[in-house]
């Protein structure tokens, strides 16, 4: 099924029903009649989108989605392909299926995610794959791939799963991490891994570490080959040198459990 924006919303449109899971089994007319929240008004989805085709596990969205929030919330299965920039909370609470976005996403991509995958072929905002405010742990599983850059707090309080950023990340990458893996192929901002308990933050560029991380050694982590190969398989450009390369291992955060690591590629 394909949904195309014919009238862009004037204020934020909360459309958590936009997922293959929510639309499963619905006809064009039924989908058009679904209620979305345009600011403080309830309006029919058809007021903004034209709906075409049958729903068979694959949903396509296209158009000016820059004010559309919560796309793919709680998605459990199927595939969703999005052309255009989207607002916040893409794929939040997602448990399965796959989202591919050709465009940029704003903050909170995949917050509280437990499974499935999100691929963003543009840039993402803050808190990619991060836990919600106040919570002790965030992402419990699943994969988020951002081809471009993301901003602060990528993988914050993550417990399981993979966040991979093709470009640069902002500050506090892997903040409060409980476990899991964050890979940044570009450069990271400052204060990577603050308060992390366990887990790995990996970057292909040098980074300024907070002093509560201790340098251990430079070595060749075998496990990383699995990740880099996997990223190559899903379409990231992986330099062969990274596969065989040496990485600085920084242990931290000493303020917490001190069992996390930051691995920095040494060219």
């Amino acid at each position, binding site marked *: 099924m394909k949904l195309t924006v014919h009238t862009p919303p004037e204020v934020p449109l909360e459309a958590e029903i936009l997922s293959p899971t929510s639309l499963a089994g619905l006809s064009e007319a039924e989908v058009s009649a679904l209620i979305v929240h345009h600011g403080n008004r309830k309006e029919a989805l058809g007021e903004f989108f034209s709906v075409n085709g049958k729903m068979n596990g694959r949903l396509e969205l296209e158009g000016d989605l820059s004010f559309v929030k919560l796309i793919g919330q709680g998605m459990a299965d199927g595939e969703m392909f999005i052309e255009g920039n989207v607002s916040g909370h893409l794929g939040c609470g997602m448990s399965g299926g796959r989202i591919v976005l050709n465009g940029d996403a704003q903050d909170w991509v995949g917050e509280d995610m437990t499974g499935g995958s999100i691929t963003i072929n543009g840039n993402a905002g803050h808190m990619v794959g991060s836990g919600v405010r106040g919570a002790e742990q965030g992402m419990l599983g699943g994969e988020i791939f951002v081809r471009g850059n993301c901003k602060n707090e990528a993988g914050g309080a993550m417990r*399981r799963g*993979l966040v991979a950023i093709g470009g640069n990340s902002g500050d506090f990458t892997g903040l409060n991490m409980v*476990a899991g*893996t964050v890979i940044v192929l570009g450069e990271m901002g400052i204060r990577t891994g603050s308060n992390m308990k*366990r887990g*790995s933050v990996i970057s292909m560029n040098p980074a300024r570490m907070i002093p509560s991380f201790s340098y251990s050694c430079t*070595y*060749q*982590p*075998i*496990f990383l*080959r*699995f*990740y880099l*190969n*996997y990223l190559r398989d899903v379409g990231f450009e992986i330099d062969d040198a990274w*596969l065989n390369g040496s990485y600085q291992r920084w242990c931290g955060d000493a303020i917490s459990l001190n*069992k996390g*690591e930051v691995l920095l590629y040494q060219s």
Partner: protein
Amino acid sequence: MKIRSTEITDTFAEAFKMSAARIIITAESDYWAMAAAQSVTGFATSVIGCRCEAGIEKTLSPKETPDQRPGVSVLLFANSTKGVGNRLVERIGQSVMTCPTTACFNGLDGTEEKFSVGEKLRYFGDGYQGSKVLNDRKMWRIPVMEGEFLIDDSFGIQAAVGGGNLLFLGKELSSTLQAATAAAEAMRKLPNIILPMPGGVVRSGSKPGSRYKALPASTNDAFCPTLRGSAPKTELGEDEACVLEIVIDGLDESSVAEAMRQGMHAAVEAGGEGLARITAGNYGGNLGQYKIGLHPLLQD
């Protein structure tokens, strides 16, 4: 039935249900992968005394291994899933984790049964171990003095076939040994099987039971040429003065059978006139689950 001058007895090898695992050992170089593989398969000729049977299946090129390093594939057999699992824990812990630069991966996908191996060995990390889960694969990273030892959390264990065998009955030692050696060499090239005995060949074939209570098996007197005159029953003809056996464990019956087929051809070629007969061991078909007939293998 005869191939060239060698008689093929119309009998069958009686093989048993076993459980098996395949482990992939990788390392910085062929040398270290093989060192670990040899060690991990050491002293694993027979479940009777070693609690498992293990052997090297093949060497692997970097393209064939999960981490793209040189590797060796090893098969390990025992009588139960738990038996295999426990041996893996012991042997990988002692022979792979110890060996420089190695990593150790499960080589059997999609098995119904899995056994926690890395999950148990991780405790060696004394709290510093860490796990990684990627695409449903969970691995443990155990810190060691040289870096870290990477091992899969669990290993697949599948039903397998043990005790496939061929008996080479020769007129004298040298041609019998030639025949057996050639057969073993040919068989070792095949996938999914191992020959657990030294060099693939065993001379101390056994029968179940013993006059001594403590022993579960004892020498196969019916095939001992030196006892032809004293044993109550002998299987040897007058000119059969030397017997060697090849034991084959495999992941499935057809792999074992194929190995036996190729083994027989190779033996006949190499043994020449000296190889009088090829037969196989069985217990009348009452003990094993598989009966691999020799004649059917050679018909086509």
